[in-house]
Each structure stands twice: as structure tokens, then as C-alpha cells.
């Protein structure tokens, strides 16, 4: 009997070598899909640039330039090349961090993007920390008492959260907490004084102020973050709490939960100790997907809160029809979105308990 049983252990464990090969193949497929998606994004932004009625050469030389000057500009931009060559040049440029020159500011777009991107990431990261904490807590609380008070409130909150236009919510929050109650500071990322004294290292205001040991500036940065991050977080809470709840409820109907109840588990022990470990992977995926949603939501939030991030950069570029800036910003937001999506996908695969041996 005993030899029989111990062989059963090894029989269900696949040989290490095969597991490595399997996971290597799965990783290759994942990475291939990721690259393909990024490539697709490049195709789309390139095609958008082609479709655009705006002519970079004409923009450069002006409408009154002679035909020869105009043709020279076209040649310099590579616009006289066949489209596949132009695409290759475009991809080559992007890979080398060359997004072109802004039409409105005549600055390098990659430098602009490097400056505004950390502001967006900082906002979204703080928001996802708020949102995930509150969202997961709400999901757990409603599973502790199905159809109870918290559960019903959650249903309402998530319905409103799905339905509220975030730019309008941001305006109302500014109106209430800044203009009326004076609890929060106004729009912007930093007070003017801090703005010009801060030394940027990472581009993240919270980190750079701490780095400099400038406590007052750190508090200022945090104070400016609270309102926009809360608005963005609310946007995420609806989805995170609701999907966490749904995942937990699905577990609560399973046999192992009944078995644990039969061993004397309370509802708290069931939810926290039995069901949650099984949905942890799903919850990580939910949070990662919500982060992509926040990246998009940040575009609208930044516009309302005058937050000098990627979203406001994009909307400002749209306003003045600054084509290279629009395409560059779209590409960077799109690539971040695609990357987070891919990471969420990979996490889902990694956290599958059957692969965790």
C-alpha cells in the first residue's frame, strides 16, 4: 500500500524538464502575442498619420514656399519614399526614441513625453493603490454577508461608478472640496514655488521631494494628488469590488467551502482563509486590468485637474492639431496599456494553482 501511494505522488507530478519546456513555450506564445500587439499599435498610429490631411512638409515650409522648397522638404521628411519604406523609417525612429518634432512647440516630442509620462504614472499608481485597497475590502465585506447592507451598498456604488462621467465627477469634487469646503488644494501638480525649486531625478514628485529631504514639498505634492487620485480611484473601485465579489461568490458555492464549514469554519474564516486564496490570482488580474482603465481615465482627469501628464499633453496637442505630438502620445499611452494588459495576462497564467508546483 505505502509504495503504491508514494508512486501516486510522483505520477501526478510532471517531470521537471517537461514542465520547463511547457512553460517556456507558453512564455514564447505570450511574448509573441505581446510583440505582435505592439506592432499592430505601430501600424495603427502610422496609418493614422498617413490618413491625416495635415502634411508635415507643408507645415514645415509654410503655404507660400516655392514648389522646389516644398519638394525638398518632402524629400527631407522621406515623404517621397514608398509607404513600406516610410513605415520602416517610422518604426526605426520610434525604436530609437525619435517621435519627431512638435509642430506647436518645436521641441523634441520624446523629451516632452519623458517629462509628462511620470506625472501620469504617479497619478495612476496612487489611484490604483487607493482603488485596489478599498475595492478588494468592499468585495470581501460583501461576501462576508451576502445580500447584507454592505453588499447592497456595493451594488449601488458600482452601478453609479460604472455610469458617472469621470470628468464631471472631477469637476464636482473640485467644486465641493476645493472651492466650497477648502479641504483640498486646487488643480495642478505642485504649488508654483515648489514647481520651480524641485530637482527632478525620477520625474515622480513624491519620490523626488523625499529624495531631496524636502518635507514641505512632499506634503504639497501629496496634497495635490489626493483629489484627482480619489476621483480616478472611485472609477476603479466599482469594477474591482464588483469583480472581487463575483469571484468570491463563485467560490462560496463550491464543495471545499462546504467541507470547511463542516470543519467548523465561520463565515470570516471561509471568506478570508478558504475562498480568498483561490481568487487571489483573479484579483491580481482584475487590478492589473483596472490599471489600464485608469491610464485611460487619467486623460480626462488630467484635463479637469490641470495635471501636467500625458493625457493633458495629448488633449492639448489635439486642440492645436499638433499631429506628431498626437501620434507620439497615443503610441506611448497605447504601449503602456498594451504592456499592462500583457502583464495581467501573464499573471493570470502564472497564478493558476495547477502550475504552482
Amino acid at each position, binding site marked *: 500500500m505505502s509504495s503504491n501511494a508514494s508512486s501516486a505522488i510522483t505520477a501526478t507530478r510532471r517531470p521537471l524538464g517537461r514542465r520547463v519546456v511547457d512553460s517556456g513555450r507558453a512564455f514564447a506564445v505570450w511574448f509573441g*502575442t505581446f510583440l*505582435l*500587439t505592439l506592432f*499592430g*499599435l505601430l501600424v*495603427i*498610429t502610422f496609418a*493614422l*498619420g498617413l*490618413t*491625416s*490631411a495635415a502634411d508635415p512638409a507643408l507645415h514645415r515650409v509654410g503655404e507660400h514656399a516655392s514648389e522646389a522648397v516644398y519638394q525638398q522638404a518632402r524629400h527631407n521628411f522621406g515623404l517621397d519614399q514608398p509607404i513600406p519604406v516610410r513605415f520602416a523609417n517610422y518604426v526605426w525612429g520610434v525604436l530609437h526614441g525619435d517621435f519627431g518634432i512638435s509642430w506647436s512647440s518645436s521641441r523634441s516630442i520624446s523629451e516632452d513625453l519623458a517629462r509628462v509620462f511620470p506625472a501620469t504614472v504617479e497619478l495612476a499608481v496612487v489611484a490604483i493603490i487607493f482603488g485596489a485597497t478599498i475595492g478588494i475590502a468592499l468585495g470581501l465585506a460583501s461576501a462576508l454577508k*451576502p445580500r447584507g447592507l454592505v453588499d447592497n451598498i456595493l*451594488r449601488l456604488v458600482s*452601478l*453609479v*461608478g*460604472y*455610469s*458617472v*462621467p*469621470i*470628468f*464631471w465627477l472631477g*469637476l*464636482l469634487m*473640485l*467644486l465641493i472640496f476645493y*472651492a466650497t469646503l477648502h479641504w483640498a488644494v486646487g488643480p495642478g501638480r505642485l504649488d508654483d514655488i515648489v514647481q520651480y525649486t524641485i530637482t527632478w531625478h525620477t520625474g515622480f514628485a513624491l519620490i523626488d521631494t523625499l529624495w531631496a529631504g524636502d518635507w514641505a514639498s512632499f506634503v504639497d505634492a501629496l496634497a495635490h494628488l489626493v483629489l484627482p487620485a480619489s476621483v480616478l480611484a472611485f472609477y*476603479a473601485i466599482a*469594477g*474591482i469590488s464588483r*469583480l472581487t465579489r*463575483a469571484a468570491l*461568490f*463563485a467560490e462560496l*458555492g463550491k464543495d471545499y467551502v462546504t467541507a470547511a464549514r463542516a470543519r467548523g469554519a465561520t463565515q470570516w474564516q471561509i471568506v478570508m482563509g478558504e475562498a480568498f486564496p483561490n481568487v487571489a490570482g483573479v484579483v491580481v488580474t*482584475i487590478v492589473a486590468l*483596472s490599471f*489600464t*482603465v485608469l*491610464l*485611460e481615465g487619467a*486623460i*480626462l482627469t488630467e*484635463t*479637469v485637474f490641470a495635471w501636467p501628464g500625458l493625457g493633458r499633453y*495629448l488633449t492639448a*496637442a*489635439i*486642440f492645436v*492639431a499638433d*499631429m506628431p505630438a*498626437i*501620434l507620439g502620445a*497615443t503610441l506611448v*499611452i*497605447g504601449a503602456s*496599456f*498594451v504592456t499592462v494588459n500583457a502583464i495581467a495576462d501573464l499573471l493570470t497564467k502564472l497564478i493558476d494553482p495547477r502550475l504552482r508546483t
Partner: protein
Amino acid sequence: MTLANIEAATTQTSASSRRALRSVLASKTATIGIILIALLLLTAALAPVLAPYDPIAQDINNRLLPPSDAHWLGTDGFGRDMLSRIIFGTRPSLGLLALVIATSLPIGLIVGISAGFTGGWVERVLMRFTDIVMAFPQLVLALAFVAILGPGLVNSALALTLTGWPAYARQARTEAAAIRQSDFLAAAQMGGIRGARLLFGHVLPLVLPSAIIRVALDLGGIILAAAALGFLGLGVQPPTPEWGAMVSDGTKVIFDQWWVAAAPGAAILIASLAFNLLADGLRDILDPRRD
């Protein structure tokens, strides 16, 4: 594009959808949603009758008036009646919604049915393409698209369609693949029905009900996306009243005449909520684990 989409993507709508449609009215949230949607449609249809004023008539002497008996929701920066503008604002919102669905659903169905029904490498290529498009950020691409093609109702709808169809394609593929294996289809093929007639006469009717339900889950999100485009100045152009653009107008005076932004935003919230209530009811009915 919204969290609702993520949730919708995780909600399986399946063959039980016919039965579900019947029990929609048994759900309280769905019923409230349907009533609100009916009111919205009625408002849009009867806008000229319901609106007390001309929505684009400017009156410089009556700018930014607070809500009163004459102007229930006050007036905007051009002295236009807010209530009338909000009533007329149902039209571009619902119109855009209809346009987006009218384009993205057929694309999704064609791609999905072709993939699921053909199988093999066609299916693999189509579905990989679908997955890739699904991984794109919808609002950002829509912004770029409209920024380049020019603002307006049709371009906004096209932009949202561009990234909106993959969810329907995925669902249609799953169902078409299941139908491909079924006996009744073999019978139809033996009866000499082939090609487009088989796909659209026999497969489409079976795939359609759950596709429609899948669309219903997205409607609230589309309303919000459309409003966002309007807010950024990329939607229907002035002076046509559009809710998102109206909120944007109100931004300049938010601290002094807050109602100019608050009222159209509330209209967006109510419209989106109406569709999300319906979706919520549908999701409850479709969830096999419902207690």
C-alpha cells in the same frame, strides 16, 4: 474602455439567452432601466415639443442665470436655456449610440461567425487579430482617430467602432463554433443549403440573441465614451447641444455658476445609468451562479 467592458467580457452569455430575455421583466433593476431608456427615447423624439425654448437661440442679456421659474435649469454663457439644450442633447447621444452599434455589431458578427464557422487557420488569424485589437486602449485611439479625421458625430462613431467590435466577434465565434458541430446544421447542409445562405439564414439567427444581450452590456460605456469625446471638443460641433461639450463649457464657470456644468453631467449619468441598470439586470439573469 470602461470597467463595465471588463466585466462584460467576463460575463458569459450563452444559449440560455432566449429564456433570459423573457425573464428580463422579472428583474427590478432591468425594469427601471427599461423605463428610463423609454423616457430617454421619448424625450429625444419629442424634443421640439418638450423643450420650452430654442436650444441654440442666444440671449446675451440673460447669460448664466441661476435656475428659476422661467429657466428651470438656468442659462449658459450665451444665455441659452439649459433645460432645452439638455432635452435636445438626448439626440446626439442616442444617435451616436445607435451608429456605433449599427457598425460594430455587424463587423463583430461577420468576423466571429466566419472565424467560428470556418475553423482552421482562418479562425486562428481572425481571432488573433481580434485579440490584438481588443488589447488596444479604446478611448485613446478614438481620440487620435477623431483628432486626425476631424470631429463630428459620424467620425466619433467610427472611432468607437474601430475598437468596439472585438467583444462581439469573440462571442459570435464561440457560438458559431458550437453550431458548426450541431446536427441541425448537418441537416441543413444535406438539404443543399450552403454558403452565405447557410451562414446568414441559419447560423446568424442563432447567434444574434446573445450578441444583442452582449451589446446591451456595453451601452452605458458607449454613452460615457461619446460624452468624453464631446467633453474634449471632438464630438458633435457647436452650436448643436451635446452633453459632454456642455459640461466642457461649464468648466470655465464651475466655481461661480456650477449648474452650467452640473446639469448636463447629471444627464450623462442618468442616461448611462439607465443602460447599466438594464445590463445589471441582464447579468443577474444570465449568471448561472445566481443565488
